[in-house]
């Protein structure tokens, strides 16, 4: 489903060049629950950003659903992300002035769906992630775990085939982190959605059905469980 072929990414920091990825190759199948792990600076977020079509590689190729995203123009990437990818962020990145419902419905509003469909799908996904009755609360009135649930609902509501999560539990305590991982796992199994998440948390790694460890911009190990 996702093919990453000899991808290189070099960042320019002042006069210094940083090789974030030094020729990474991967094949990811549909429905995988995959973790990209490694120490800080190993290149896991860069790889996630490249698969998520929000960064530009310097060399190599990435194809998702047989589409070469590396060759897409900016607008095409935006459209591709809108239709095919869901994102979960470490700091949730919810819009503070919108309610939980509105934060989730926002994604569907980009797809030009009818109001009824937006409402039905949003309410259904909020129920699924355990936020029934909290639709009208703003992020400020929700706990960290609840906010991350809203973010998961936001990522899932458009039924994307791939969800990318950058350190989704890093801002949560271990119990809440576990709850979130279980929720993600459940959604992965129920909807057969491919989950790719970066982490350096041992507990998160244990949940993954495939663990890719990066070190200095290269794959150190790739273990399927």
């Amino acid at each position, binding site marked *: 489903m996702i093919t990453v072929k000899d991808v290189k990414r070099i960042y320019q920091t002042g006069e210094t060049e940083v090789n974030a990825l030094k020729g990474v190759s991967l094949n990811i199948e549909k429905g995988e629950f995959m973790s990209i792990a490694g120490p800080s600076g190993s290149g896991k977020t860069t790889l996630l950003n490249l698969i998520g079509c929000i*960064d530009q590689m310097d060399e190599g190729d990435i194809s998702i659903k047989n589409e070469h995203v590396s060759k897409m123009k900016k*607008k095409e990437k935006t459209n591709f992300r809108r239709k095919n990818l869901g994102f979960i962020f470490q700091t949730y*990145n919810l819009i503070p*002035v*919108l309610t939980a419902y509105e934060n989730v419905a*926002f*994604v569907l*509003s*980009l797809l030009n769906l009818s109001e009824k469909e937006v409402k039905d799908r949003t309410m259904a996904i909020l129920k699924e992630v355990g936020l029934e009755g909290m639709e009208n609360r703003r992020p400020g009135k929700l706990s960290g775990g609840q906010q991350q649930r809203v973010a998961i609902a*936001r990522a899932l509501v458009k039924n994307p085939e791939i969800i990318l999560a950058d350190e989704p539990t890093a801002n949560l305590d271990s119990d809440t982190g576990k709850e979130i991982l279980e929720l993600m796992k459940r959604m992965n199994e129920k909807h057969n959605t491919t989950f790719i998440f970066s982490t350096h948390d041992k507990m998160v790694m244990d949940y993954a059905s495939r663990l890719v460890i990066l070190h200095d911009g290269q794959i150190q190990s790739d273990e399927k469980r």
Partner: protein
Amino acid sequence: MKFLISLAFKNLTRYKRRTLITAGAIAFGLMMYIFVDSLLLGIEIESVRNLKWFETASARILNDDYWENRFQRPLDINIADPDSIMSKLDDNGISSTKRVEFSGDLILNSTDFGEDGNMSVLVTAVDTERDFDVFKFDTTLQEGRFLEADDDAVILGSWLAEDIGAELGYWITIVTRGNGGFYEAMDLEIVGIVNCPNPNVNRTLIMMPIDVADEYLAMEGAATEISIKLPESADIDAEVIRIQGLLNGDGLTVMSWKSMAADYLAIAEAKRGGTGMILFLIFLIAAVGISNTMLMAIFERIRELGMMRSLGMSDKKIRIAFMIEAAGIGLIGSIMGVFLGLIVNFFVVKYGINYGDMYRDMDIGYRVQAIIRGAWNFKTMGIAFFAGIFISTLVAFFPTKRALKMDIPSCLRHQ
């Protein structure tokens, strides 16, 4: 679009104080714009009115050669039979009056004035029966009485009277040259002092009866001008052509007040341009304020911007969302600004601003003195209202564009 509008207006409540401060800056700019425009319009309306009521009338009939020699005040370039022309104008329902304008030396005698002195003056001899039909001096009497026929008397403008220390009952002598070039001296009693709202007139006015001047100056019934009053609603250029037609080309010409006051109108136009620059600067300051607020609002939400872009929101929609937000600030500012403008305007129109002390010793071109009143101009208020919204929206474009130039990972990393 519904979502974008809803998001933009919710974001306005996010930083209430900042929104209000920026909207306040816009409101102040618009209020100033409305205030200055009202004052300028008021001055212009009053200035033109005072020009016509006390200086030029609506139009004037002159000898063909008079206008180009007007600064010499020639008595021999005149209208030989003004009465027949005025009679023709009367038949056509047009109010008119004849006048003789001449220059001379005003001699002040120590008996009345405490010390001897003299100064160059301009004297206007008026038809005591008809002058009020055209000019509005009847409302300006401050002391004494108006002129009567066969009166060896003068009326002075109050500022001139004050400058020379004149009082009712004092006598002045005017030395001039009559029609034909002979010297003549006239002893005249000050019987009235008028306070004319036109400062140029109030500063120089010496008025005497035309029949007395006719005798002293040997005018033999001639006048240097016939002043005409036309209704305010009249098409002045069309009326000038019509009156010119009535004259049958007797070597006379009709000039509208616009032609006579061309210099004043040009200065007023130039002043409008200068004021336009000031108003532009006021708007510019407001625009910089909004731009700064939007810049802060956008850069505080860079991560949010990154999230929206990641989820597939197009740059165009993000730009629209921020521009709607800025338009919202503009809308609040415009409502506040027009409301404040209405309040300020009410006081400026009703009570005005007293510039009397300033105008007393200074000629700024406008024919107004003492209290300057504003005028209602709803067109300006409409322009101010929409300009506030438009400028706010426009200035949000640039910081948004700048923020959208950042790549998405940098946006997501932004602290």
